[in-house]
């Protein structure tokens, strides 16, 4: 029952009659029961891809296959994939009950079943006491829950989310994202979720698909895309990254910021002969006043409460370091020279 996207291309004609490739040859296998997130900056094609899955857009070429059947020509109303829209898209002339039960009525389910399913959805999303309200009488968070209930009540084969939390304030966003994840896991439903927020993607997903300029940069678990970004783009987009050029010294050593390091097995695939690009996460840099293989000058200090961000300069390269702070560690002032070590097992190379 997995959803397979095969060589999907979507071209739009722009106003000046040029062709713009929004989605460029994407092939993906989205496993049943998992939470998949399409992540990328605006214009990367993530929403277009989602809308093609929902049936609102037709791929220019390529196939969308679900449970062995090709869906391309199937109109949206026959796909059985419920969607939660960015603007919620609640019907303004219907109250909560009418909104939630709309799709069930279209399906012509027996009344008793509609009532019990709606009841269940209302329970699940704690919408008690809101049943008679119209969307314009509700807060954004409540509207969001109604939209979620309306999608869930259909017991869809796949549930689609188009940046559903982007219109909520920060606190509510955290709460809703936990609720969405919990519901998805409880119901064991397949979810495809679009967002540009990398933290949200990591918090919620089984699989993150990082998109850029209509192409897949990497697909993998949140840990994979963070620990082993496949490209420089992924490394930059997810978390902070120092991307440093390295040079191989024979087969067993390489030089990084003027010091020699031993290759470990993890490093080798990414390191081209000659030079390579190493990703150093800011938290992999350990600062110390006296000890450490490298030395650097502190250029800038930002105090964030539980952490401190430093900008260092080392061999003419700018480095970002992110250091936890629990009230006892020394805070280095700008201009001082410090030493640091890089945890070499956390190093990762990209092409």
């Amino acid at each position, binding site marked *: 029952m997995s959803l397979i996207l095969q060589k999907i291309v979507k071209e739009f004609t722009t106003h000046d009659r040029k062709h713009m490739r929004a989605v460029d040859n994407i092939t993906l296998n989205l496993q049943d029961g998992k939470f998949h997130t399409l992540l990328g900056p605006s214009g990367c094609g993530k929403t277009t891809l989602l809308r093609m899955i929902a049936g*609102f857009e037709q791929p220019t070429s390529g196939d969308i296959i679900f449970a062995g059947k090709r869906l391309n020509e199937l*109109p949206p*109303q026959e796909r059985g994939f419920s*969607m939660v829209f*960015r*603007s919620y898209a609640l*019907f*303004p002339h219907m109250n909560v009950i009418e909104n939630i039960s*709309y799709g069930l009525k279209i399906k012509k389910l027996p009344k008793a079943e509609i009532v019990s399913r709606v009841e269940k959805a209302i329970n699940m999303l704690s919408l008690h006491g809101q049943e008679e309200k119209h969307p314009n009488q509700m807060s954004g968070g409540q509207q969001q829950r109604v939209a979620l209930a309306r999608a869930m009540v259909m017991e869809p084969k796949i549930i689609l989310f*188009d940046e559903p939390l982007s219109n909520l304030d920060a606190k509510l966003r955290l709460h809703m994202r936990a609720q969405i994840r919990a519901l998805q896991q409880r119901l064991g439903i397949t979810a495809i979720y679009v967002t540009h927020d990398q933290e949200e993607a990591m918090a919620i997903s089984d699989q993150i698909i990082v998109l850029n300029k209509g192409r897949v940069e990497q697909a993998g678990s949140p840990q994979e895309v963070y620990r082993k970004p496949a490209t420089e783009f992924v490394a930059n987009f997810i978390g902070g990254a120092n991307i440093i050029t390295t040079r191989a010294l024979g087969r067993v050593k390489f030089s990084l910021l003027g010091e020699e390091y031993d290759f470990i097995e993890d490093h080798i695939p990414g390191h081209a002969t000659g030079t390579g690009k190493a990703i150093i996460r800011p938290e992999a840099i350990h600062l110390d006043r006296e000890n450490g293989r490298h030395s650097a000058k502190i250029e800038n200090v930002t105090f964030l409460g539980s952490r401190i961000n430093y900008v260092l300069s080392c061999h003419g390269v700018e480095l970002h370091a992110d250091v936890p702070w629990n009230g006892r560690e020394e805070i280095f002032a700008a201009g001082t020279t410090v030493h640091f070590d890089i945890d070499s097992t956390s190093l990762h190379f990209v092409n």
Partner: protein
Amino acid sequence: MQSTSQKRKFDPVLAALLFFILGGLSLFVLWPLALVLKASVTSEGAFSAARYTEILANSQYAAPLWNSLKLGAVVAVAGTVVGYVFAYVLVMTSAPFKRVFRFIATFPIISPPFIVALAAIMLFGVNGVLRKEFLEPLFGTNLPSVYGFWGLFVVETITYFPTAFLVLVGVFAAIDPVLEEAAQNQGAGKFQTFRDVIFPLSIPGILSSVLLIFIESLADFGNPLILSGDYKVLAVEAYLKITGEYDTAGGAALAMLLLVPSLIAFFVQRYWLEKKSYVTLSGKPSSSRRPQSTWLTKAALFTLCAIPSAVVLLLYGSVIYGSFVQTWGADNTFTYTHYTGALNDAWDSLSDSLLLAAIATPITGIIGMIIAYLVVRRSFVGRTFMEVSAMLTFAVPGTVVGIGYILAFNDRPFLLTGTAVIIILLFIFRNAPVGIQSGMTAIRQLDRSIEEASANLGAGMLTTFRKIVLPLVAPAFFSGLAYSFVRSMTAVSAVIFVVSGTWNLATVSILGFVENSYLSKASAMCMILVAIVSVALGLMQTVVHRMGVNR
């Protein structure tokens, strides 16, 4: 929002403005109406409800009332249906020839009010070309006459469906396409989406346009004056009572019968219906686009638009054609003698029309903007009074206003009858509402802090208005100007009561041509008016466009 704690000091400029505007509204809007009411309940100087008891008993009054209401109701429904189809096709589908349909649906707005009736007579009148050449040979001579209910019904539907079109285009455009997708995503097909989402969301717009067309049809004077035949309607009967029988009280009573349903419809539309509308614009970016229609739907909807369009084109086409041929229906040789003839006969009234409209238009525009600014931004005693009485003229049928002006300005202390001033005043107060409305909308959208910044830098209220508000609301100002110019050039119902030998108007001359069966001359004169109005609109559009670029 006005803060109540912040009491303003006495402001002489504001006080003077208020004095003139409130005084003007009282004198030129409310007082004439009050006199109509008074005349309708006065008999030989004493109070008498005789007219109203007569109304209940006498078919002389009851029939026109019933006829007007019936005609208004069916025209309102038919016009709304046609306007709905046009608006739906234009906004919600990808049907071909959209531009043509938009033009056809908005063109009748700028044409003189009786041009359609004129065309109907040329085509379907007793000697109408289509009647003689096609209908009678096919169906015999026993056809319903163009004069009467059916003729009026078709002509008014064609004349007023643009109102519904404009209202509903706004309504459809405000429906977020994502709602259609949401319905489809929930399993609804195209028809179900329309039935369950689009149609219910457009109901307030439908009711609104029904009421607006109802008001317009009740107030229509030009078409029924030409076409009503034995089907008597209030607007024309009231006019005939006064100008034909010199029965002012009777005319006033008929005018009251006309006024009451119009006002009810107006207040329902404005203060009840406007609150019911569903605002679906979320103000957030929506990646959704209107779905493509299938070939079959396109063809069906295209046909639905094409039929009324063909009728509109046929009617306007015959007026254009008729203005250029020697003898309509008999001798089709090209000639422009009707134009020279019309200009010969009606040159004075045309130049009067132009002059008076040119004087009234800028005054209307400025007064409209000042009223809009005061109502939206200042708090003062009588604010609601100002807003309601300024907007009231929108709902009051021209005939009622005309009768009111006769009653009010025929005698000292305001002896204005026969002067240019009365016509200019009538133009100003009748045409201000649209400018006020668009001005209010524009000013509400202005961030208040812009004005506060101006005040903070030391500018007074007038300077702020002139240097800051006016330039920013210029597009609204010019569209108000355009509207009032068009109305001044094409209106007939109210001004027909106040024109005189010295000051006559082009529309009244056209009516004279029609009454004397100079149909070709009337057509030529209509075309001249359309041309003048189009040029004026084009100029205003250019000005607005320029300003838009500079902002």
